[in-house]
């Protein structure tokens, strides 16, 4: 089916490429550990395939729990996952994780907003992760 609507040229599949479903989650799966052992941010992420979907568990100063994660490829006609995002809502704190693979590294950008009247600024944080072994 030829896409009828685009918001930019990248929304069009390149000639000869066909999207394959479902997305191959394998590049993302595993236990990712922060390179910086002294990080004050996220220490570890666990990405798992479950019933065809992707889930993430995050460990920081506390365990964040498990939420759905949403995989992305590198183009409209490709099928290997190269990125994901996920959203945590702790009530007074909300965190959007915007993550992508860079070679064998997982780059995790966390966009955090506070809704607890604490006066803290919303903030951006970046950490880099690898799969041990």
């Amino acid at each position, binding site marked *: 089916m030829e896409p009828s609507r685009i918001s930019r040229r990248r929304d069009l599949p390149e000639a000869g490429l066909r999207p394959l479903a479902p997305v191959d989650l394998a590049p993302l799966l595993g236990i990712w550990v922060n390179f910086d052992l002294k990080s004050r941010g996220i220490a570890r992420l666990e990405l798992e395939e479950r019933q065809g979907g992707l889930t993430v568990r995050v460990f920081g*100063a*506390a365990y*964040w729990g498990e939420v759905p994660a949403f995989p992305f490829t590198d183009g409209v006609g490709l099928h290997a996952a190269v990125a994901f995002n996920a959203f945590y809502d702790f009530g007074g*704190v909300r965190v959007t994780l915007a993550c992508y693979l860079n070679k064998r590294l997982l780059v995790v950008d966390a966009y955090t907003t506070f809704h607890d009247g604490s006066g803290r600024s919303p903030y951006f944080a970046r950490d880099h992760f690898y799969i041990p072994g």
Partner: protein
Amino acid sequence: MEVATLMRAEEGLPEGVAPPGGIADLSALLGTWFNTDKNTGGVVRMVLAGMPADFTVHAFGAGSPPSQEYDWGSTGAVAYASGVASPDGMAFSATYDFGFVETFLAAYTKSGILVLDTFNVFKDGSGRSNYFSREFFHR
């Protein structure tokens, strides 16, 4: 006000530091940002404008033919500092919902460059894969 359990140590204010009360300075973000790749098929340029309370992004997508642009219009954006104690905006996020595709923008500044990640989810049954892009901009 007492802060609840920290999910990350970095969420806590440094000892003796008062909370800034949010973002106060957007100067590192405001202006027109141009893609460093003149042949991009993604976002051509973005205009970041407003005050912290009404901060907006206005993006333009690469057209076909390249001489044309897709005007995405203006949408509200959220500014972020580099830490909870800073009032200086250095990153932002925003969402465009075009109906057939929803695009989440996640961007940050570094050494005068704006790095933009987009996360694109198709909702039109076209079979296109949801995709990620990463692009670089200068003012």
